């Protein structure tokens, strides 16, 4: 057993989610950019150990919602909490439990994979010794251990995304947000990343909010939130949303709910 294996074996699974507390609670949130309303009374929850797809066209308000949850923007109206911790009143406690993968790449391209991970760990107050062990562990898991000392700019798009997800999990969050994490990746890389994230839900009990505009990334067992022009049009199990829209699949349900046309599995 290597030192890394021993460390993995000695690590407890992430803390169990508290009974009755949603991983993420978005309560009647509205947000405007000047006169333009980006979010209008959005209200839903993400359960622990669940995969919730946030489906919407570009400009639907997904990234704005992510910026509010991550406290990059201040909340204008409504309330957001993570496992019961209000993001405005107790941001430290809330952000401790949150891992985020933003749509734009947020890795430092000139630093190595390990250096990027160590920097993230430091920002969460994780000691250097512990951070090194965890970094080795996550790089092993995403099969990039042999590239640990390489510069990030030498990685492929899919490898960068895997690294970003690994980084977001380094501080062992209970809720993971991913904003269009598969944009720009090939089919295989997309499938790998999606599988990896779904495993985190089933094996580690992490609550996931997955923002996307691609219908084929959504499974019938998922929870679904449909966002369109800042308004939440539907929320519930995918099968229920489809049934309530009187449709046969997500594609058609989305089209009926939003009144938009779709093309080849993508909103047109």
């Amino acid at each position, binding site marked *: 057993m290597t030192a890394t294996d021993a460390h993995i074996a000695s690590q407890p699974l*992430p*803390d169990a*989610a*508290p*009974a*009755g*507390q949603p991983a993420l609670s978005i309560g009647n949130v509205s947000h405007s*950019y*000047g006169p333009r309303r*980006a979010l209008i009374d959005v209200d839903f929850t993400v359960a622990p150990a669940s995969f919730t797809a946030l489906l919407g066209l570009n*400009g639907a308000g997904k*990234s*704005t919602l992510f*910026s509010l949850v*991550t*406290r*990059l*923007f*201040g*909340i204008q109206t409504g309330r957001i909490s*993570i*496992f*019961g*911790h209000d993001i*405005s009143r*107790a*941001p*430290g*406690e*809330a*952000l*401790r*439990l*949150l891992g*985020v993968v*933003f749509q*734009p*790449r*947020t*890795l*430092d391209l*000139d*630093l190595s994979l390990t*250096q990027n991970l*160590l*920097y*993230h*760990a*430091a*920002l*969460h*107050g*994780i*000691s*250097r010794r512990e951070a090194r062990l965890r970094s080795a562990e996550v790089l092993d898991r995403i099969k990039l251990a042999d590239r640990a000392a390489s510069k990030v700019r030498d990685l492929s798009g899919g490898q960068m995304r895997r690294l970003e997800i690994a980084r977001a999990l380094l*501080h*062992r969050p*209970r809720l993971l947000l991913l904003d269009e994490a598969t944009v720009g990746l090939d089919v295989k890389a997309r499938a790998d990343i999606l599988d990896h994230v779904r495993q985190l839900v089933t094996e580690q009990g992490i609550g996931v909010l997955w923002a996307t505009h691609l219908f084929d990334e959504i499974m019938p067992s998922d929870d679904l939130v449909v966002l369109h022009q800042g308004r939440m049009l539907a929320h519930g199990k995918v099968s229920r949303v489809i049934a309530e829209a009187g449709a046969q699949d997500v594609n058609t349900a989305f089209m009926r709910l939003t009144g938009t046309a779709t093309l080849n599995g993508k909103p047109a």
Partner: protein
Amino acid sequence: MTSTTATPARTGFSPSEYIVCLNGIVWREALRFLHQRERFVSALVRPLVWLFIFAAGFRQVLGISIIPPYETYILYEVYIAPGLMAMIQLFNGMQSSLSMVYDREMGNMRTLLVSPLPRGYLLFCKLLAGTAVSLLQVYAFLVIAWFWDIAPPTIGYLTVLPALVLSGLMLGALGMLISSGIKQLENFAGVMNFVIFPMFFASSALYPLWRVQEGSPMLYYVCQCNPFTHAVELIRFALYGKMNWVSLAVVGGCTVVFMAGAILAYDPSRGLVRRGPGGGEA
């Protein structure tokens, strides 16, 4: 990492977590600096050009009378050395500001801002990291200047350190405050024209203020109000083991004001940073 209402959540952060975070931010800033060797070289070349060329040319034109902290007549090169040290820090502060705008545009800044530690503390760490980098540059300049016969008392190399830290913090905080108001990288060129040049030239970095007063009383008052003048004077006095209390008060006060402004600007609920799609964001 339990955080529930049923099980009391861990609240606050331990001192060691704060220290780990500070170390991490300084370490990353140092790594980036080392990776950008041309930045180090250009940071040194700029003041050396002033020292070797400009000062040599003006030596015969500008006579320096005996003024505190100097106790004898000095060469012009000796006079402008503290101003050039402050100039290194001024450019470094603006460079940090530029990198913050770049990080914000590229998305790297989000990594910092979604840390659970208090945002004001994170910005302060970033400021300290920038100041540490500026100290490396200033001391490298002092080593080269020593070969050019600019040799303050040996103790001066030590006594100037606190002054450099304070002036570095002030200029870094100013850069941070400015970065919060810049929406796009392209707009940064304006900082050169509207901040760096006026601050540098309307100060005591290149000429003593009594000479400015002879030429233009109005400009003299502008120079007196310029915090950069006081950063230069604080460094000048400290380099000779002396204290300029007025400059200390001005630089200290400005550091607090600029830092408070930057923290306010990066506060998501009250920030001045423009937020919107394509408009840049915190």
